[in-house]
């Protein structure tokens, strides 16, 4: 019976690891198939090993253009949403004012709304106003749906901050501006960074809202969507794999750096 006992004891671990496998399986497939040399237009079946796509990642028409557009939009959407969201978060935590409840609902609703509803209604607005669809309408939409996530991330951090820290700064001759720059902002920074990172990821990866409001402009997710109809180039997998690796490496690097800094200090 020891096998049964062992299984019983580690049931949760086994289940958790299976889920983790489920989560990671597609990434493994994406990586493996980035070395594929498909026969037809679609890269769904394994044919033969090849470095071709890795040697020429921009070899597909318009793909790298759409990638660069997505990066630009994600960058500006992150900047916009982070600035506006941080301001709202500070107002919500630090000040008493009228209509607090309505403000909170207005922040909450975009997160509780299916993307397709926001996408469709925003398109209605743009059509009614006769706004030309493209870069700007995408950016507007992205800032809109990233905003709430920044507010939530920053709010949590600012709320957990001891108000005495700012009082201590004031007590130590820091005026309001100095207090904000030297104490409040650095302490809120992790929350702001988390909000910004989330914004970047959400904006870069957004498809549904972008698809409605992009007009003829093509972002990277839209390119992938289109290629699912026309034929999937292997280069898509190359980009996907590269992004995954860069993300993991960046996180590992920052963790190692953090660990070393802590050790030096201790």
């Amino acid at each position, binding site marked *: 019976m020891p096998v049964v006992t062992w299984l019983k004891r580690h049931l949760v671990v086994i289940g958790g690891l299976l889920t983790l496998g489920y989560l990671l399986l597609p990434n493994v497939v994406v990586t493996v198939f980035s070395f594929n040399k498909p026969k037809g237009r679609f890269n769904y079946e394994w044919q033969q090993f090849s470095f071709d796509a890795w040697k020429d990642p921009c070899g597909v028409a318009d793909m790298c253009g759409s990638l660069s557009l997505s990066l630009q939009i994600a960058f500006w959407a992150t900047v916009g949403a982070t600035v506006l969201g941080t301001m709202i978060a500070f107002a919500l935590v630090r000040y008493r004012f009228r209509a607090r409840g309505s403000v909170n609902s207005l922040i909450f609703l975009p997160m509780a709304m299916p993307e397709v509803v926001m996408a469709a209604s925003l398109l209605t607005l743009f059509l009614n106003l006769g706004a030309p669809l493209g870069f700007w309408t995408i950016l507007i939409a992205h800032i809109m749906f990233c905003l709430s996530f920044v507010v939530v991330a920053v709010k949590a951090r600012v709320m957990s901050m*001891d108000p005495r820290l700012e*009082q201590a*700064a*004031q007590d130590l001759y820091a005026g309001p501006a100095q207090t904000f720059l030297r104490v409040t902002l650095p302490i809120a920074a992790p929350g702001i960074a988390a909000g910004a990172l989330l914004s970047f990821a959400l904006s870069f990866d957004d498809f549904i809202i972008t698809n409605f409001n992009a007009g003829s402009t093509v972002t990277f997710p839209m390119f992938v969507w289109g290629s699912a109809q026309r034929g999937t180039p292997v280069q898509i997998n190359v980009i996907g794999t590269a992004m995954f690796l860069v993300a993991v490496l960046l996180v590992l690097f920052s963790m190692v750096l953090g660990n070393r800094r802590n050790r030096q*200090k201790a």
Partner: protein
Amino acid sequence: MNTTDNSGDVRLSGISKTYGAFTAVHPLDLTVPQGSFFALLGASGCGKTTTLRMIAGLEEPSGGTVFLGDQEVTHLPPYKRPVNTVFQSYALFPHLDIFENVAFGLRRRGIKSVKKQVVDMLDLVQLGEQARKKPHQLSGGQQQRVAVARALINTPKVLLLDEPLGALDLKLRRQMQLELKRIQTEVGITFVHVTHDQEEAMTMADTVAVMNAGRVEQLGSPTDLYENPNTTFVANFLGTSNLIEAEVDTKSGDDIVLKAGGGKLVLPEARCSAPTTTGGKVLVGVRPEKISLTHADDAGEIPEGRNRITGKIADSSFIGVSTQYVIDCPVCPEFEVYAQNIDRDARLVPGAEVVLHWNPAHTFGLDAAQDIDAGVDIEEEAA
């Protein structure tokens, strides 16, 4: 009052604070002279911290004025006041190391070369080694010293301490009390110290103001407060008092003779804060350690002229330096007596009939029109 240097005086005049319908501090006049160690003592919610924060500028008074020396600072923001605060739980900046925490005030005032000052200050509080650590890497006692250093380096006119030792364990607290007292004597700056710990206030401060419900109940030196409490709150909050309700009988010379139960008690008139008309009620108080305990069989050996009452031992607990008795007396159901363990009488066990007697000079008198239990047990809640 206006001696050569009074720039470190703190003068509060009619200062008050209300939050909506709640009055945290009733109009209050208070002068803390330059160079003194002043304690605001009271239970939580008594208004002591609010008073401190009004001096620091962190709270805007609802009325009245705050003076530092001759300068009126009532409406000055905290960063323009020459006072610094050691906050409750320290409020050290978590993103800055110890050195930068201590240098913070100097830098904000535009001082460029801070290194020597900071190093000297860290040496003073014995933290030279820890300069590059972050606050969370230090122990509670070390963090507390950083908080003191961070405030003192600015050589403020007044140092405000808001329950600075509240987070430390008992042993460390005792040590830091002496340390703070030493630093205060060394730098000669006015310290205003807020605490709920009566022992801490008495050990450290030159002057203690006991606060209750937004008002100063009594102000004086620790000895004065202990020996001559003016209110039942002070009598019960500082140490323990036995209070007996008595009736004024006669006056003889400087003494008042009172009737309590069947017996008579003598109280020096100078030590009575209540009006004493014949037939009026007075609360007679005596501290537990002033009392001698004699077994009823030996009652004859008690010298003449001492106040005496009889009772039965209800409980006794041996705590090393002394033995604490609870005596059930007709005039006071839970009379406390602390007896030094010099010659222990083996007959003094629960159930024994005893006579309690003390020198009348140790008796104090209070107005009977107050709550006899005010201030009892408050310390437990606050701690």
